[in-house]
């Protein structure tokens, strides 16, 4: 029996995910980070994107917004504003959110750096949602 990690994803509104998993890939601030059991304790920022989870030999994808991850030897806890399990994602809504964010980014030339960053994160999050949904279906 291989060792496992306890993966928890929490948002201010609920606990989206809580399972024992074999491996997690995070969209870290310095690139993707694959986390196996007994990882060094780590605190990292995470970008909006997709978390790839290996559980029971299968791959699952969870879309998250930007946030933070706390990694210790036996668990990974992710703190984020938004997260969506592939079952709960509505592709049309995500698509619409992406288009809206992209438009806003393209049209308004004088938005602040902060807002541009927020919009980029929103785009990444919507893309991850769409991807997670499609993967689930195929």
């Amino acid at each position, binding site marked *: 029996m291989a060792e496992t990690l306890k993966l928890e994803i*929490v948002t201010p*509104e609920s606990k989206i995910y809580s399972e024992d998993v074999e491996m997690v890939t995070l969209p870290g601030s310095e690139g993707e980070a694959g986390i196996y059991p007994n990882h060094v*304790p780590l605190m990292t920022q995470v970008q909006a994107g997709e978390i790839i989870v290996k559980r029971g030999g299968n791959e699952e994808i969870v879309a998250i917004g930007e946030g933070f991850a706390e990694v210790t030897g036996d668990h990974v806890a992710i703190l984020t504003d938004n997260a969506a399990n592939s079952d709960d994602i509505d592709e049309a809504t995500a698509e619409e959110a992406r288009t809206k964010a992209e438009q806003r980014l393209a049209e308004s030339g004088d938005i602040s750096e902060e807002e541009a960053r927020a919009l980029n994160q929103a785009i990444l999050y919507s893309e991850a949602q769409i991807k997670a949904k499609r993967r689930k279906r195929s």
Partner: protein
Amino acid sequence: MPSTREIRRRIVSVKKTAQITSAMEKVAQAKMARAQQAALAGRPYAELMNRVLGEVVSHAGDFDHPFMKARGGENRALILVTTDKGMCGSINSNLLRKVTNEFVTDHTRVIAAGRKGAQHTARVGWNLAAEFPYSDTPVFSEARAIARMAVELFENAEVDHVDIAFTNFVNTLTQKPEVQTLLPITEIKGVQAGVEGEEMATELPGGTAEFLFEPSAGGVLGALLPHYINFQVHQILLEAKASEFSSKMVAMKNATDNANDLIKDLTLEFNKMRQAAITNELLEITTAQMALGN
């Protein structure tokens, strides 16, 4: 002296009012429970945030962030969390009285969350910076929008201090108007204590394990602070909603009771009049009989 028909009509109308208020009471009860549940659902998030904050703060050392710098100017912003609708007892007027006396000056810009606060602000001529709606079960994005506005004002040095005024939910019968400071985050001490005076405050585990930080402890803390503020605002909105509905529940219960009392009084009055009319008639009949018999 009203006629019996008028009284009967009034009884019917009061009965209808009682029906409406008792329905509103039940709706408020359900919504209050929902707001409380939503606040509880944030608990795992708060716990994790405390853990992260605890680690980060103990590793970051002397950390300086614009959010934590007290500037001491007199320009302030006040986030005024009120309800959208009336019929909820005195919580809005209590809150407004508190902020009127203690917090609003000519240098205060009001960010209104909820329509009542915005209306009051316009009426008394305060400086209204923005008005935000929030739904009966506040979602995080609503809190984020409000927090972003406040943070922007603070970052652009348009204001030097941000307070948030809301009605604290003590229990179903008691709600207390309260004002908390949102920005600057008072020293690193406030951060260390985790989620301030909220009932969900947990012990911070402190920096025991040797954590690696990516990009750095300071960087993580800097990125964490906006989330920390968003979360605070979110919890405050939920708290305010719970207060609103519990206050509404009590107000509607009183209204229903009053209506029922009124119905009782009116019914008594109605019966008295009816009886008086019958007695009168009888009296007339007997008098007529006696006159005939003679």
